[in-house]
C-alpha cells in the first residue's frame, strides 16, 4: 500500500487546476496563477479535466450554486479549497497534492444517474428566478392567470409575435385555442429564453415538442374541462418538471385530465390509470432523462432548423466569472443572445485594481487562452506577476517580457488573419476601437507600458449582446474576451436582443 501511495503522490504532483474568481479578487487570482505557473501546473478547461478546484473569495447566490454544480461534475480524486488571501498559498497547494494522493474509495464521486436527474429537476426554481429576472419579467405572474379569456381565441396570424408582448400570458391557456393557424415565428424567447419560433403553419398536431419546461408554478388544472381533443397534440410539458406530455394525439384530454394535479414537480408516473395508449410512442420518463430535445426555428433563409438553448458562464475558463450568456444556437451560430450578471457578480466591486499595465496583461492573458495561444498567455501572466514584484530587477525583466508579449501579439499576422473583422460593437465611434483586433492591439499598447493609451472603458451588456448575435460560438468567445463587460448595480441591466 505504501508503494501505491507513493505512486499516487508522484502521479498527482502536477494536478490540473480550475481557478474560479469571485468579482474583486483579481489580484488574488494573479498571485494564485503566478504560483501555478511557477509549479508548471496545468489549467483545467472543464470540470472533467479538473483535479483541484480553487475558489477565490466567497461565492454567494447563484455563483455559489454554479460552483456546487461544477463540483458535482469533477471526477475523483479531487480537492477543493477556498481562498480569500494569498497567505499560505504554497502550503495549501502542497496540501492539495496530499489530499489527492490520500483520497480513498469513500471519497469517490458517487453521483449516479438518478442524482444527476434530481439535480436537473431541482434546477427549476433557481434557474427560473434567474431567467425571469434577466429578461426583466416576472414569471410568477403566469401562474393563476385566467385561462378562460383565451379559450377559443384564434391564435392564427400571430406571425412573428414576440412574447415580450405576451407578458403575463398563461401558456396553459393554449389549451383549447385554435392553434391551427399561422403560428409563424411565435417567439417565446422572453419567457425563459425558450424559442418557440418555427411552429410555422403547423396545426397543433405539429406542435410536438412544444416546450413549456421551466414554467414552474404553471397551473395545469385549468386544462380540466377544456376540450383538448386533437388539439393539444405533442404539447411537451417536460423541461425542468421532468414530465413529457408529448404525443397526446387524439386523446380526449378533458376526460383524462380532470382533477389531475399537474402542478410543479408532479411525477407523471403517478398517473395511475391514465390512458397512455395514445401517447404515440413517446416515453414519459426514459430516454429523455428529464430534458426536452432541441426546438426548431427558422434560420435566415426560412429553413426550419434545430435551435439549442445554451448558457455560457457564469463559471467558464477564460470567461468573466459571473457573466451569463444565454444563447440560442443553430449549429454553432448564436441567433439570439441575452447577457446578464448573476447575483453576486453584478456590482462595481468587480473592477480590477492594480496597475493599468498589469491589468492589460491580465486581459491579454485571458484573451490569449481563448484564442488558443497558450505559450503567449503564459508569458503574459508571467510578465504581469513580475510587474507587481518588489524586486526592481524582477520588475525590469518583467517589463521586457511585457514588451515582448505585446509586440508578439500585436504584430502576429496569423492572429490578425484569424480574428479580423469580427466583433464590431454597434456604436461605431471613431475614437474607440471597433473590432476585436483593434481592441486587442490597444490592450497590447497598454500592456507594453510604453505609450499612454487610455484604457478602453467597459462595454455595456446590451451593446455586447447585439455584437454577439449572428456570430458563432468561437467568435462570441473572442469578442467577450476582447472587452471588459460593464458591471451594473442591478441585474435589470441584463438585456435580450430579439431574433
Amino acid at each position: 500500500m505504501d508503494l501505491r501511495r507513493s505512486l499516487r503522490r508522484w502521479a498527482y504532483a502536477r494536478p490540473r487546476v480550475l481557478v474560479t474568481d469571485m468579482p474583486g479578487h483579481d489580484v488574488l487570482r494573479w498571485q494564485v496563477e503566478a504560483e501555478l505557473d511557477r509549479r508548471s501546473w496545468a489549467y483545467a478547461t472543464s470540470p472533467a479535466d479538473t483535479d483541484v478546484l480553487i475558489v477565490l473569495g466567497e461565492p454567494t447566490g447563484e455563483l455559489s450554486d454554479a460552483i456546487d454544480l461544477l463540483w458535482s461534475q469533477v471526477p475523483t480524486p479531487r480537492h477543493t479549497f477556498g481562498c480569500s488571501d494569498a497567505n499560505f498559498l504554497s502550503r495549501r497547494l502542497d496540501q492539495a497534492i496530499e489530499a489527492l494522493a490520500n483520497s480513498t474509495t469513500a471519497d469517490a464521486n458517487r453521483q449516479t444517474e438518478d442524482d444527476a436527474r434530481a439535480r436537473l429537476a431541482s434546477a427549476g426554481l433557481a434557474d427560473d428566478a434567474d431567467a425571469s429576472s434577466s429578461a426583466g419579467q416576472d414569471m410568477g405572474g403566469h401562474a393563476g392567470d385566467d385561462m378562460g379569456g383565451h379559450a377559443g381565441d384564434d391564435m392564427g396570424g400571430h406571425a412573428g409575435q414576440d412574447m415580450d408582448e405576451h407578458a403575463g400570458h398563461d401558456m396553459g391557456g393554449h389549451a383549447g385555442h385554435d392553434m391551427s393557424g399561422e403560428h409563424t415565428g411565435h417567439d417565446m424567447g422572453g419567457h425563459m429564453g425558450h424559442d418557440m419560433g418555427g411552429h410555422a403553419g403547423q396545426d397543433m398536431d405539429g406542435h410536438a415538442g412544444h416546450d413549456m419546461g421551466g414554467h414552474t408554478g404553471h397551473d395545469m388544472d385549468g386544462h380540466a374541462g377544456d376540450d383538448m381533443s386533437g388539439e393539444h397534440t405533442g404539447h411537451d410539458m417536460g423541461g425542468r418538471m421532468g414530465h413529457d406530455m408529448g404525443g397526446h394525439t387524439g386523446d380526449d384530454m378533458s376526460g383524462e385530465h380532470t382533477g389531475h394535479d399537474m402542478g410543479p414537480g408532479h411525477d407523471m408516473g403517478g398517473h395511475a390509470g391514465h390512458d397512455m395508449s395514445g401517447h404515440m410512442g413517446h416515453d414519459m420518463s426514459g430516454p429523455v432523462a428529464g430534458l426536452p430535445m432541441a426546438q426548431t426555428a427558422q434560420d435566415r433563409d426560412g429553413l426550419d432548423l434545430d435551435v439549442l438553448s445554451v448558457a455560457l458562464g457564469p463559471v467558464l475558463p477564460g470567461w468573466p466569472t459571473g457573466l451569463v450568456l444565454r444563447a440560442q444556437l443553430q449549429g454553432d451560430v448564436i441567433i439570439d443572445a441575452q447577457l446578464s450578471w448573476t447575483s453576486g457578480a453584478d456590482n462595481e466591486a468587480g473592477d480590477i485594481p492594480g496597475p493599468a499595465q498589469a491589468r492589460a496583461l491580465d486581459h491579454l492573458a485571458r484573451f490569449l487562452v481563448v484564442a488558443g495561444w497558450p505559450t503567449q498567455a503564459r508569458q503574459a501572466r508571467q510578465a504581469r506577476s513580475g510587474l507587481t514584484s518588489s524586486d526592481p530587477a524582477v520588475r525590469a525583466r518583467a517589463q521586457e517580457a511585457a514588451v515582448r508579449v505585446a509586440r508578439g501579439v500585436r504584430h502576429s499576422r496569423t492572429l490578425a488573419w484569424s480574428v479580423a473583422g469580427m466583433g464590431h460593437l454597434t456604436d461605431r465611434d471613431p475614437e474607440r476601437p471597433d473590432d476585436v483586433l483593434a481592441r486587442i492591439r490597444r490592450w497590447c499598447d497598454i500592456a507594453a507600458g510604453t505609450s499612454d493609451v487610455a484604457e478602453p472603458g467597459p462595454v455595456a451588456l446590451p451593446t455586447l449582446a447585439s455584437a454577439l448575435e449572428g456570430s458563432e460560438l468561437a467568435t462570441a468567445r473572442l469578442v467577450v474576451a476582447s472587452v471588459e463587460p460593464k458591471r451594473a448595480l442591478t441585474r435589470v441591466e441584463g438585456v435580450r436582443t430579439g431574433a
Partner: protein
Amino acid sequence: MLAVLSLLGVIFALGLSVYATSAVLRDDRIGAVALPFESGLRPTQHAVSRYHVRWYAVTLLFLAFDMEMIFMYPWAVVVADMGAGAVVEMFGFLGVLLVGVAYVWREGALRWT
C-alpha cells in the same frame, strides 16, 4: 495481412492491459454520472440535435475531389511509365475541377462566417 492482424491483436492486448491497470489502481470502478458541463448551469435541453452546419456546400466540393483521389493513387504509380500524356490528362482533369473551386470561391461558399 497476418502482420496487420497481429498488430491489431497487440493493440487490443495493450488496450485491455491499460483498462485492467486502471481498474486495479483507481478507487472508483463504477464511475460518476454528471450533468454535461454548461458553465455551472443546468442544461435546459439535450445537446444532441440536428446541428446546422453552414459549410455543407464545401462538403460537396470535397466529395468531388475525394472521388478524384481514387483515380490519382493508381495514376501516381504508373505516370512515369505512361509519359507526358498521363500528366496532361490528369492535370487537365484537375484543371476542370479547379475551375469549380474558383466558381465556388467566387460564390463565397468557402466562407460561412
